[in-house]
């Protein structure tokens, strides 16, 4: 009589085979209930896999994906790490950030004054020193940090003077306009006075 597939499997051990199939197969929860019927090889494999795994010391170097947020325990992505690195700017970078923003503010005020033909000081938005949580300064400083922007003292001085006297140029223009206007008014008054005098003498 030809041996069944089941017998053949046993004979050619190690061959693992679930003893029952389809609807007759016991649920996986009863795995150990079938233990005596499980092939030796499978039992050996499970015994091997049940042994504790060796704990291998990971070298003390930063591995990709190792870093986690100490508060939440969640991983920090490369993008987040980049942002955190950029926001870790120096006081010098913060100083340059404030300087840049002040000059930008002066420039915008000058343009506004020029368009409106008004005193540029009226359009200044950043007059006082920045507060601790000034996000514009923080982000500008982070960008200076990110792109490694370097400023020389000469450049900084020229930048400051340009800002300062750029504002003065507008004031000069305004003064010239005011003087012209005053002169024109004075001339008109004089003409009126002369016209009145001539008119009285004709009488």
């Amino acid at each position, binding site marked *: 009589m030809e041996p069944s597939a089941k017998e053949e499997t046993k004979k050619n051990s*190690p*061959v*693992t085979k679930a003893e029952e*199939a389809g609807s007759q197969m016991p649920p996986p929860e009863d795995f150990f209930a079938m233990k005596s019927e499980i092939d030796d*090889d499978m039992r050996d494999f499970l015994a*091997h*896999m049940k042994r504790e795994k060796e704990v*291998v010391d990971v070298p003390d170097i930063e591995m990709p994906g190792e870093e986690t947020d100490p508060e939440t325990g*969640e*991983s920090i992505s490369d993008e987040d790490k980049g942002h955190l690195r950029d926001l870790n700017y120096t006081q010098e970078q913060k100083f340059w950030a404030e300087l840049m923003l002040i000059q930008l503010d002066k420039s915008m005020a000058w343009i506004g004054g020029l368009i409106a033909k008004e005193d540029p000081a009226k359009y200044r938005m950043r007059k006082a020193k920045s507060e601790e949580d000034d996000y514009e300064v923080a982000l500008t400083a982070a960008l200076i940090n990110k792109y490694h922007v370097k400023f020389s003292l000469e450049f900084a001085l020229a930048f400051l003077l340009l800002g300062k006297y750029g504002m003065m140029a507008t004031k000069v223009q305004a003064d010239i306009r005011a003087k012209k206007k005053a002169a024109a008014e004075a001339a008109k008054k004089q003409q009126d006075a002369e016209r009145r005098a001539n008119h009285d003498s004709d009488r």
Partner: protein
Amino acid sequence: MQRDAQITIVIGRNGTGKSTFCEKIVKGIGARALAVTYNGMPKIWRPYPEVDITHKKKMTFPKGIRQVIAGRYEEGRNKNRVFEHIYRNYRDGMIIWDDCRGYINSAVDDNKYFRQLLLDFRHRMLDIIFVVHSPADVPPRVWGFTSTVWVGATDALVNKSQVRTSSADRIIETQEEVNRIFRAAKARGDNTHYGLFRRVDL
């Protein structure tokens, strides 16, 4: 006596009981495991809760099986973040890459996190099981890390060059033997063909 974490390959055609076999391994050793499929198939994993692999805290479950659907983490052609999240957030457990041909590229280096998982599985104490239909579905570099192969019946004709291990002959011989037994059992029609796997240690 302690052991190293290890990589195992389970080979078999549809209907040989590969996933059931893996489930029994997990239950047999009382491990905690991630069962990763591309789209939730086969349905044997469906009773198990799906885990959000993007949160490390949710990956600290002590025991049992959690389902991971790799398709949810796909972000375009050849870009699946399932490997990244598992690499970042999961340690000391088992990973079953079920029917992995659907989402694991044969070029291991295409995804740095998958490559890193292969390189670091011992450090991370991760037992990894690749479930495939034929030896040709195993990414070639995986053979170099594999300790055990469970060979079930397969229809695929296996070319020796596709099995990148010095034990290729033993695997092919075993496959032929299992195929023969499988055919005999199936012809008998009593469902005893289900769950036939033979072990080859590399």
